[in-house]
Structures are given as C-alpha cells and as structure tokens.
C-alpha cells in the first residue's frame, strides 16, 4: 500500500546507492586523484622491461608522480620504449633525469623510479630519457653470481 513511509524508505535506498557509488569512486578507485589533472607525456628507453606492465606507478623519491601508459618495442634500436604520463605539478625533471625499474617487495610489481639530474633544462612533453636502468632479471643475477663464484676459486 502506497504510503509516506514507503516513499521515504525507497528514497533512502536510492540515496544509499548513490553514497556507495561516491565511496567507490573516491575511496576505492581513487577517481578524484587521477582524472581531474593535466599531464604531460615523455618516453624512456630501456634494454629490458621484463615484468613492467601498463598502469604501473612512476615515482620520484618515493612519491607517485605519474603512470606508465604504454610499452613499445623500438626495432631501430632493439630496445623497449616506455610511455609515461606525468602530472603537470611535477614539471621540474631535468633533461638528464635517470629512470630505473624497481620491484616493490620481494615478489611485488615493477614500478619506475625517476631521479632528477643536474641539467637546468627541464623535460617537457615528447622528450625521451636515455639514462636508464633495466629491470633485474633473476636468471641473469644468478648467472652473474655463479660466474663470480667461479672466478674467485
């Protein structure tokens, strides 16, 4: 039977749903942070990007400054080109900035760490970083270790 109380509870239901949507947008998916700001794009050339994925974090001094938006293979140089999107508020990376691929935790995901250099010219949209450190591939590390062990004998 139609009644005021019923109407109120239905309105409350819909409102609750809207609140949950807002919660999901802000707290669960971090919408406000990533979508509302302007970014600029640069690329970085790596010898090996094993384990790095799209949307991986890009940070400097531990602070997230952007995201990986694409990974390509450049057959002219036989290297990997990683496209990075950096927040406009961080526009002071020098032209000789270095980029390294790190691992979060022992078996965590890969992310890119940027370390700014001494150059007074700053990176802008479309620039490329050449000073890079590739990701650590476990097999190569073990191989090197064994080699070292062997040569010490």
């Amino acid at each position, binding site marked *: 039977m*139609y009644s005021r109380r*019923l109407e109120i509870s239905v309105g409350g*239901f*819909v409102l609750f749903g809207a609140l*949950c949507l807002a919660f*999901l947008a802000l707290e669960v998916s971090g919408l406000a*942070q990533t979508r509302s700001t302007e970014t600029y794009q640069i690329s970085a050339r790596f010898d090996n990007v094993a384990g790095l994925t799209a949307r991986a*974090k890009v940070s400097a001094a531990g602070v997230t400054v952007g995201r990986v938006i694409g990974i390509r293979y450049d057959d002219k140089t036989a290297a990997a080109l990683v496209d990075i999107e950096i927040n406009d508020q961080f526009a002071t990376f020098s032209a000789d900035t270095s980029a390294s691929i790190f691992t*979060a*935790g022992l078996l965590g995901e890969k992310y890119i760490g940027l370390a700014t250099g001494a150059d007074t010219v700053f990176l802008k949209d479309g620039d490329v970083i050449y000073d890079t450190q590739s990701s650590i591939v476990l097999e190569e590390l073990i191989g090197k270790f064994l080699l070292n062990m062997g040569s010490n004998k």
Partner: protein
Amino acid sequence: MLGYLQRIGLAALSQLSNLGRAGLILAQAVFGRSRAGIHWHLLIDQVYAVGVLSLSIIIVSGLFIGMVLGLQGYTILVNYGSEQALGQMVALSLTRELGPVVTALLFAGRAGSALTAEIGLMKVTEQLASLEMMGIDPLRRVVAPRFWAGVISLPILSLIFVSVGCLGGALVGVSWLGIDSGSFWANMQASVSFYDDVVNGMIKSVIFALVVTWIAVYQGFDLVPTSEGIARATTRTVVYASLAILGLDFFLTAVMFGGI
C-alpha cells in the same frame, strides 16, 4: 529414431515459441502506451518490495564475502610478502566479478522468485483476467512496474554489496590482521580504475537486472494457474536466472576484461 528426432524438433519449436511470447510480453510491458501518474506509485511500491526488502541479505552477504576475501587473500599473499596488495585484490574481485554476480544470484533467489509467485498468484486468482475485462492491460499495470523496479534496484544493490564488501575486507585486513591502513587503501586506489572496473561492473549489473527480471516476470505471467504451477514457475525462475547470470558473466568478462 525418427520419433526421437521428432520430439527434439517439437521441443525446440516450443522453446522458440516460448521465447517469442516472452519477447512480446517484454515489448508490450516496456513500450506499451503509458498512463502516467498511477504508475509512479506502482513503481515506488515495487522498488520497495524488490530493492529495499533485499537490503538485509545483500548487506550481510557483502560484509561476510568481503571479510572472507580479506582473510583468504591475506593467508595467500603473506607467503609472497605481498600483503599490501590485499586491498586491490579484494576491491578488484568485488567490483569486477563478485559484486555484480553474487548480488544478481541473491536477487534472483529472493526478489525474482517473489516476483514470479506474486504475478502467478494474480493469475490464479483471476486478477489478471479481471483487469483485462475491465479494459486495463495487465502487462502495463502489473508487469511493467515490476520490471522497471528490478532494473533500477539491482544495480543499486550491487553498489551497496561492493562497498560493504570493501569495508569488510578493510575490517579484516587493517583492523584485525594489521596491514597498514594507508598502504591498503593507496594500493587499492592505484589499481582499481573507476571506468574499467567499477563502471564495467555496473554495466554487468544492469544487464543481469534486465535478464533476471525479464525471466521472473515472464515465468509468473505464463505459468499454469494452479498452486503447483506457481511452485514450478518459481523454481524455473531461480534456475534459469542463475544459469543466465553465470553464462552472461563469462561472456561479458571476456568482452570487457579479456581484451586488456
């Protein structure tokens, strides 16, 4: 041998005609002439019956599933030292899959079967026939409001389920198991994309709502008007709707997430 083939053929034909009837019922209920005013009240009544009354089971289920995800996730991730990833594991599982699917399954069982029984009872007590004889289209008055109420309520219930689930996972992970609150939420936010995960989950929910409500409403409208007929129809609603949900989920997941 021929007789066997004949039976299969007849069965297929009757399924086809059932599908056709179901389609006609859907079309008439959705697109028929509108008489506003009366139907707004009916819609609100039905959203209450189908949505608000399902809140308790959805919230409790969401909470427990979120908490179990948190617990199970932790015990697995801690082996790899990756327990900070718990937040994203819980959130992604819920927003992409468990939220839409489990909510839809619960909905089919609770609200779907109630819908079928209600419409079936109206058919048995000749209320549908008397509406017809009074010159009122029972599809417009009885079926349409219930259909739209389902389509509106289920996505809302899904949102509530996912939110409560994430909170449940946080409850277990942060408060009980001691994961750092900051990294729990930060990791979650970094890996859950609003458009790719939350919105896709909502789209799934809307599609499930359409299918489940359609099945429930059709089974109620088309059943054999006896008490046994109602019992069989409600069972059919739950079974067909559940299968449809699971099948559609696979298809939708492949389309939405398989591409990435």
